[in-house]
Structure formats: structure tokens, C-alpha cells
């Protein structure tokens, strides 16, 4: 493995160049965007959870002065699209399946006029029986939400029945025997809530058609090239006629995937012949959200008296709401990682994704593994406490190692959870603190709890093009947008390191599907890993061309060349050197021609067949591990939990930009804490009860705990300069670590998120009653 000291740029903290325009208020987000003649759009969302559309009357809306056009399903192709299962349409056709489903949209001179027009659209509905509980929806005879489900196209081996749009089952070893061998068997059911991504910039897009009927869309989407492809499918246009350009993004966290507002803006632009801007209000963004899907997780685990786990089986039920969206994918990962980072020889995992008439759920940071991690790591503590073992010791006895096999039958590699655990426990003085007295004052109790995390790393394809400019700088074309995470800074560091340039001499170009090469998007913590690999390879390709010319110009005769700070030199004779700028002059005007470095990347796992029934995911390239410890104070009088400190150790392989890694850990931890304690989209009969930031409570600066990030760097063979991505795992640890810390403090276990004061008080009451 390369020695970190050998790197001039990678591994050194860098300030983000984009921060300059952001602190000045100059970064341009979608809502800041204006084109000449631009109209403003508003959407009519379904206010019924399940209803037949009998008639839509748009005449009065069209009659309003200032209104240009109204669109409904009649203006949209009748082509279903979707990422795993093609069940979606731009506008509801024939019936609505959830509140917040688009029914019609208006483009007008101003948002105020468009809003008035929306109120004038009359929709006649005939109510259909609606269903809101996934378990009810699974029962025979439940009203069918997608009667045509059987005929929908899917990217996975589809096993469907009634409202179940995905059934998957994985197994390994002999679970039955494993349970027989166990001294104790634990069965626990956990529940997680719908979580809103809470990006501060609501979703939006600007769409415009030119005279050749080519569509251009500006959007703060996190998958620009996927958005292009999905728009083309949904609008029945060739991809050459669809251009998608990324704007500044005000946060995404899994809420700005594929398409959402983009096709609506496009249809309005097409029909009105004018550019159209559609930016959701916060309330709409909630109601039409793609929140993290709620899960029911039933876990059964067998353990020997010596603490060895003999078998585990899980049954997971995810509520999709009206459409499958990414929920199917989250289930794939949830079942894959149902063992956690533990060696469990006999395992079984079943997953069901179920349509209901709840809002259209989807995914968020750490996909389905997030929900799974809460259940697994909570149950680990339940077991440890029952068998009288320290939770850290119990975990240690079961930690997975390289070569241990997941329930997908894929062998694990790069397992470093033993080290993240060791580091974090030492840093937070685990042993002493577990033993320390809990009581602080009359009603307050201190507690400390831990959780381990495991996640897949590396997902599908990325590509990059590196252009060497005549002034000796480089431009990198990639499909990767910067979500706000600072990934463009780290990607520039990767390119600069490989090219031997100063980081500020590398520009990561704005993403434009007309010129940016393919990229799956800024999802799955894949940007540094997958895009980073593509960029490193493309930079290497450019360097190879530069070196060929340098060899000739310097008369190096095949001796080893090096590049640094914009110069190429002979390694053993550093005085023999030439600037990249001069090399480019030579190339452009004398010999060789322009330099384009290019690379495509598809991370190849050491495992290429999928097992199990109905499984929707590709295998992982590699894996990423971490450990969190939470310290809390619980007030048993009010049920309030104050998180005092979270110590978070993550193995990132190599921290390309250590400052950026620490910032990811801090932000992820606080989001995870919100999920643990406060955040829940409250849904009653399909209606979001709290569609605003007052009632949907995200952590404020008053709640933010002390965060101690611990960055481990155990280089990953497949990562660029050894790096792994870290966006998501940072968000997984806090919910179970906090739940476990609460148990440690007051001896009650809350198995349903969020752990609100009411739930906690209730659990404390139950405990009192039991003890009495």
C-alpha cells in the first residue's frame, strides 16, 4: 500500500473553494434562477389517499388572467417509470394512490396567480377504500392499490402478490439447527418512523424547450445523469433531446433522487412554450416528500451461554406508500446486512415491501441499512444484558472477520470493526463509565451505549474525462454534483495528486448531461469511492500522455518521471524538468495534439452471482465499518433525553480531505440523533400532520451534542488512494447507540423510534408497574 506521507495533496485538509460564494450569498440554487419570459408553476396534489378520478375541470383555471397553461395526465405519455419497479406516472391517471400525488399543474406569470389557478381546478373523485397499515395491506382481500402490479416491469426478479411489490428471501446455513443449538432465543420487534430528509433547500427545477424541441432542465437533483434518463423515459424522448444541468444544491440526503418535480416543469414548459420554474413550498415538499420508509423489523436471535450467536432470522416489512420508489432497494440492503457486522453462521432474512395509501416513501442516508442497524444493535444490547455480559464484550465475541459470509453469501472483506470498536471504547473510557454510578441528582440519570455499523461500499458505474488545458491546469468532467458535502474539493484533490498539479489548478466542471460522462449519482456514499476511482484513472490516463511527451522533450530515455506542482521531472535528476504548461504548448503546436484522459469505472466485486429469491441489489464491492458511543442524560420526570457526547469512529480507508471527513461525521451524527429522538412525519389516514419545521422537529444548535470524530485510515485496496466513502455510516450509529445509552441510564428499552419523552415516560411507567 502507498505510504500516506508520499502524498502531497491527498490526506491534507483543504478549505472548500465553493464556500467563498456561499458565505457571500452568491451561490445560485434553483429558486435563484431566472430565464427571460420564465413562468412560475404550482401543482395540484391529490388530497385523497385512494380515489378514482372521475373528471378534472381546468376551464376556470385557464380563464384566470396571467395563466398560460394547465397540464394533467392527458398531457403526459402513459409510460410507467421507476428505478426498481416501473409503477410511476408523472400525473395520476385514472386514480390517485396517496395524498400528495400530482394531479395537475399550472404555469402562470407569478406564483400567486398559479396558486389561485390551482384552487380553481375542480377534480371529481370517487373515494376508494384506503389502507394505511402495511400488515393490513398484506392480508388477502385488502383493497388493491396497484391492480396491474403483475404487469409492471421490474429490474429485479419480481415476486409479487396483492399489495406486496417485493418479496425477498435470503438464507445461509441451517437456521433451524442454529436455534436448536442455542441456549437462549430472543425475539424482538422494532419499529421505525417516516423520516423527512429536511434539506434546507426545497426541491425545484427550471425547464425550458428550445426551437428544436430540445429540453433543458436545471435542477438540484443528486443524480443528474439518472434524472436525464428517467426524464427521457417518462416523456418518451430520446436522451439526446434531454439536457439536465446541476445547480447548487441545498442538501439532499436521499430526497432529491431520480426525478420528482422535473417532469412536471418539463410538461408545463412544453405546453406553454415558455421556460417554467417549479419550486415547492416547504409544506408541499413535506406532503409530496420521499421520506425514509418506515419499517417493522422482527428479529429472532439464538445465543449460547458463552455469548456466541448461533442463528438469526429476520422478517422485515417496509411501507412503500403509494409507489415503490427506492423502498424496494432499501429492502435489498436491509436484508443483506441483517446480521450486522457479526459472524452468524446460520441466518435467514425475509423482506416485504408493501403498497399502502400513505405518502410515497423512499429512502434516506444509509438506505435500509439504517433501519436494520437500529434493530440489530438494540437487540445486541438486549441480549448482552440478559446473559449478563458487557455489550462491548458480547459484540467482541461475535465480530465478523474477513471471509465471513453475509446472508447474501457474499464473503466480507476489509473488516475493520474490531479496530473502530477498540479505538472508540478507549477514547470514551467505556469501562470506567459503564461502571460509574448512574444517578445524577434526584431525577437525572447518566447512561452510555454503543453501536457498530456496517455498510456496502461501491455501487455501479462512474466515468471521468480529464482535459489538460494549455495553461497547465486541468478540467475534470464528471457526472458528480457536490451535494454540499464538499465532494468536489476531495475529487479535485484526487485529480491533482494523480496529475502532479496544485489542487487549485484542477477544476471540477459543473455537471451538464450534454458533456458530463455517465455517473450513477451522489448516493450510497459512492462519490469518493466510485467517482474518485474514475477520476483517478482518467487523470492517470492524462498523465501517461503527458509523460510520453515529457520523456521525449526531456530526453529521459525511459527513466522514471514524476510530476508535482505543475512540473514533470526525471526522478533521479530533478533538474531535468518541464512545466505542464510548456508540455501542452509542445503538444498543441508541435507534436502530439490535445490531451484527454478518460476512464470508465464499474467496481467489480469479488463475487458475481446473486443468491436468494427476489433479491433486488447488486453485490457490494467492499464494506465500510464504524462504531459510535453515545452518552446521555435522562430526566425521568420529563422523559427528556439530553445527548451529551457522541464519539464516532469510522474507518474511511484514507481521508482524502480530513476536514471534510470530520464535517461529514458531525453532520451525520446530528441527523441520526434527530431520527433517534425527535423526528417523525406523523401520518394519520395518509395525511401528514406536521408538514412544517415547527412541528417536524429537527435538531437545532441547542440540541447539538459534543461530537468526537475518530478517523481511522486502513487503506482499502479498491479505493482511490485507499479511500472509502463516509456520508451515510455517520448517520446510522446514533439511533441504536442512544437507545442503548438510555437503557444503561434508566433500564428501559424503547423499540420504536423516535424515543420521544411520551414513549420514554410510558416505558418507565411500565417498568414501575412490572417491578411493583
Amino acid at each position: 500500500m502507498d505510504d500516506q506521507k508520499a502524498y502531497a495533496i491527498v490526506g491534507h485538509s483543504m478549505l472548500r473553494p465553493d464556500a467563498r460564494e456561499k458565505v457571500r450569498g452568491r451561490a445560485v440554487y434553483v429558486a435563484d434562477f431566472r430565464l427571460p419570459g420564465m413562468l412560475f408553476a404550482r401543482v395540484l396534489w391529490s388530497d385523497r389517499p385512494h380515489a378514482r378520478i372521475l373528471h378534472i375541470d381546468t376551464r376556470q383555471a385557464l380563464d384566470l388572467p396571467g395563466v398560460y397553461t394547465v397540464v394533467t395526465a392527458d398531457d403526459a405519455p402513459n409510460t410507467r417509470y421507476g428505478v426498481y419497479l416501473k409503477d410511476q406516472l408523472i400525473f395520476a391517471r385514472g386514480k390517485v394512490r396517496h395524498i400528495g400525488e400530482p394531479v395537475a399543474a399550472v404555469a402562470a406569470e407569478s406564483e400567486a396567480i398559479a396558486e389561485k389557478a390551482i384552487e380553481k381546478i375542480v377534480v371529481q373523485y370517487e373515494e376508494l377504500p384506503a389502507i394505511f397499515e402495511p400488515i393490513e395491506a398484506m392480508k388477502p382481500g385488502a383493497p388493491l392499490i396497484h391492480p396491474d402490479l403483475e404487469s409492471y416491469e421490474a429490474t429485479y426478479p419480481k415476486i409479487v402478490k396483492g399489495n406486496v411489490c417485493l418479496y425477498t428471501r435470503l438464507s445461509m446455513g441451517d437456521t433451524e439447527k442454529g436455534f436448536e443449538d442455542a441456549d437462549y432465543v430472543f425475539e424482538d420487534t422494532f419499529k421505525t418512523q417516516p423520516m423527512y430528509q429536511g434539506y434546507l433547500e426545497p426541491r425545484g427545477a427550471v425547464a425550458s424547450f428550445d426551437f428544436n424541441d430540445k429540453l433543458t432542465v436545471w435542477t438540484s437533483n443528486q443524480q443528474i445523469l439518472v434524472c436525464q434518463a428517467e426524464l427521457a423515459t417518462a416523456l418518451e424522448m430520446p436522451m439526446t433531446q434531454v439536457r439536465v444541468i446541476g445547480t447548487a444544491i441545498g442538501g439532499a440526503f436521499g430526497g432529491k433522487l431520480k426525478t420528482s418535480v422535473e417532469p412536471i416543469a418539463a410538461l408545463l414548459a412544453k405546453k406553454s412554450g415558455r421556460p417554467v420554474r417549479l419550486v415547492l413550498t416547504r409544506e408541499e415538499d413535506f406532503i409530496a416528500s420521499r421520506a425514509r420508509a418506515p419499517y417493522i423489523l422482527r428479529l429472532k436471535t439464538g445465543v449460547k451461554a458463552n455469548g456466541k450467536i448461533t442463528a438469526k432470522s429476520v422478517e422485515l416489512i417496509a411501507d412503500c406508500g403509494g409507489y415503490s420508489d427506492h423502498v424496494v432497494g432499501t429492502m435489498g440492503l436491509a436484508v443483506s446486512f441483517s446480521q450486522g457486522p457479526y459472524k452468524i453462521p446460520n441466518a435467514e432474512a425475509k423482506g416485504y415491501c408493501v403498497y399502502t395509501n400513505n405518502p410515497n416513501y423512499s429512502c434516506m442516508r444509509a438506505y435500509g441499512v439504517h433501519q436494520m442497524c437500529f434493530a440489530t444493535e438494540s437487540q445486541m444490547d438486549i441480549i448482552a444484558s440478559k446473559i449478563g455480559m458487557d455489550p462491548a464484550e458480547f459484540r467482541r465475541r461475535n465480530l465478523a472477520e474477513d471471509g465471513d459470509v453475509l446472508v447474501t453469501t457474499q464473503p466480507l472483506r476489509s473488516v475493520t470493526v474490531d479496530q473502530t470498536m477498540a479505538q472508540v471504547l478507549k477514547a470514551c473510557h467505556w469501562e470506567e463509565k459503564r461502571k460509574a454510578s448512574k444517578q445524577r441528582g434526584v431525577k437525572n440519570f447518566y447512561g452510555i451505549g454503543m453501536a457498530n455499523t456496517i455498510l456496502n461500499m461501491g455501487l455501479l458505474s462512474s466515468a471521468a474525462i480529464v482535459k489538460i488545458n494549455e495553461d497547465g491546469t486541468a478540467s475534470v468532467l464528471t457526472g458528480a454534483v457536490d451535494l454540499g458535502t464538499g465532494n468536489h474539493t476531495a475529487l479535485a484533490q484526487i485529480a491533482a495528486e494523480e496529475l502532479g498539479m496544485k489542487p487549485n489548478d484542477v477544476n471540477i466542471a459543473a455537471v451538464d448531461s450534454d458533456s458530463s460522462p455517465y455517473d450513477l449519482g451522489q448516493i450510497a456514499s459512492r462519490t469518493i469511492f466510485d467517482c474518485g476511482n474514475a477520476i483517478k484513472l482518467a487523470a492517470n490516463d492524462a498523465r501517461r500522455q503527458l509523460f510520453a511527451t515529457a520523456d521525449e522533450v526531456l530526453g529521459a530515455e525511459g527513466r522514471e518521471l514524476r510530476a508535482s506542482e505543475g512540473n514533470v521531472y526525471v526522478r533521479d535528476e530533478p533538474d531535468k524538468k518541464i512545466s505542464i504548461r510548456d508540455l501542452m504548448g509542445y503538444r498543441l503546436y508541435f507534436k502530439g495534439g490535445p490531451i484527454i484522459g478518460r476512464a470508465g469505472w464499474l467496481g467489480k466485486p469479488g463475487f458475481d452471482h446473486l443468491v436468494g429469491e427476489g433479491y433486488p441489489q447488486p453485490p457490494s464491492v467492499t464494506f465500510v465499518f464504524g462504531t459510535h458511543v453515545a452518552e446521555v442524560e435522562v430526566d425521568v420526570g420529563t422523559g427528556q433525553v439530553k445527548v451529551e457526547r457522541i464519539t464516532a469512529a469510522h474507518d474511511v480507508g484514507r481521508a482524502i480531505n480530513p476536514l471534510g471527513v470530520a464535517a461529514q461525521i458531525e453532520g451525520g451524527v446530528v441527523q441520526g440523533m434527530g431520527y433517534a429522538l425527535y423526528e417523525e412525519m406523523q401520518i394519520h389516514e395518509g395525511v401528514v400532520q406536521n408538514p412544517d419545521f415547527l412541528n417536524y422537529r429537527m435538531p437545532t444548535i441547542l440540541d447539538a451534542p459534543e461530537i468526537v470524530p475518530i478517523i481511522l485510515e486502513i487503506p482499502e485496496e479498491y479505493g482511490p488512494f485507499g479511500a472509502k466513502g463516509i456520508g451515510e455510516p455517520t448517520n446510522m450509529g446514533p439511533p441504536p447507540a442512544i437507545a442503548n445509552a438510555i437503557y444503561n441510564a434508566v433500564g428501559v428499552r424503547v423499540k420504536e423510534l423516535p424515543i420521544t419523552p411520551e414513549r420514554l415516560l410510558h416505558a418507565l411507567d411500565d417498568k414501575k408497574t412490572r417491578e411493583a
Partner: protein
Amino acid sequence: MKHAIELTINGKCYQIEVEPEERLLDVLRDRLGLIGAKEGCSTGDCGACTVLMNGQAVTSCMILAVAVDGADITTIEGLEKDGEIHPLQKAFIEEGAVQCGYCTPGMILSALALLKENPEPSDDEIRRALAGNLCRCTGYTRIIAAVKAGAERMKNHG
């Protein structure tokens, strides 16, 4: 019915005719192109639209334009002097307190209002002053550090 108002924004005097339902945020963004004030919620709950009104941090989505007649407004665009960014802006960059940047202008202005009144705030005072500004990206740690570093820098800049 339009109303004529007169106000100072970033040191410049403006006379504007506004609609009764128009908000200060709309005037800034849509009429004057001052896009630094962001709209995150429209209900006064996120702080992204924060500006200074007569030195106080206010959420401009909650203030009607007719109510700012005669006021002195500072937006994020008004912090630069002679092409130099404000020491507090510099501190946000250097402490790594900026991620997606959507909360940043509002955060900086809320912090500035605090520092004008209290040049050496404690952590708790910073937290209380910024309690109305949501940030979904940073976890707030670096924002607190940036406000402290900004306070230092402002002292040194006199």
C-alpha cells in the same frame, strides 16, 4: 392597492411600490435580485431568510414589505467592504462551517447581530442566538467554532 415605501438596503436608499401581501423577502429576492436571503420554510421556522433590520436579526419571510418603511436593512450582500469579505464570513470559510450553504447567509447574519451586541459570547450565548437558524448539514459544531473565530477576527479588525 400599492404602497410606496422608502428604505435603506446595504447603505443604499430605495423607493419601492409594494403590494400589501408582499414580504420583505420577496422585495429583496424578486425585485432587487438580492438572492443571498434564502427561502427555506416561509413560516419563520428555519432562519434561512434572516436579514438585519435596524441591526436586529429578523426572518424576512415573516415581515410584510409595507412594515419596513423607513427601516435600515442589511443583507449578506452588504457585508463586503471594498471587495473584501467580512471577517465573520472569512471565519465561516476557514472553520469549515459551510456545507451546502443554504443556511449560511442567515447563520452569518444572526451571528453578526449577536457579535455587535456581545463581542465575546460564550458557547451558550452563541447557541441561544442561533437557535432559530436550522442547519441540516454541519451538525453545528463548526458553526459555533466559526462564530468564535469571527469574534476574534472582528476584534482585531477594530
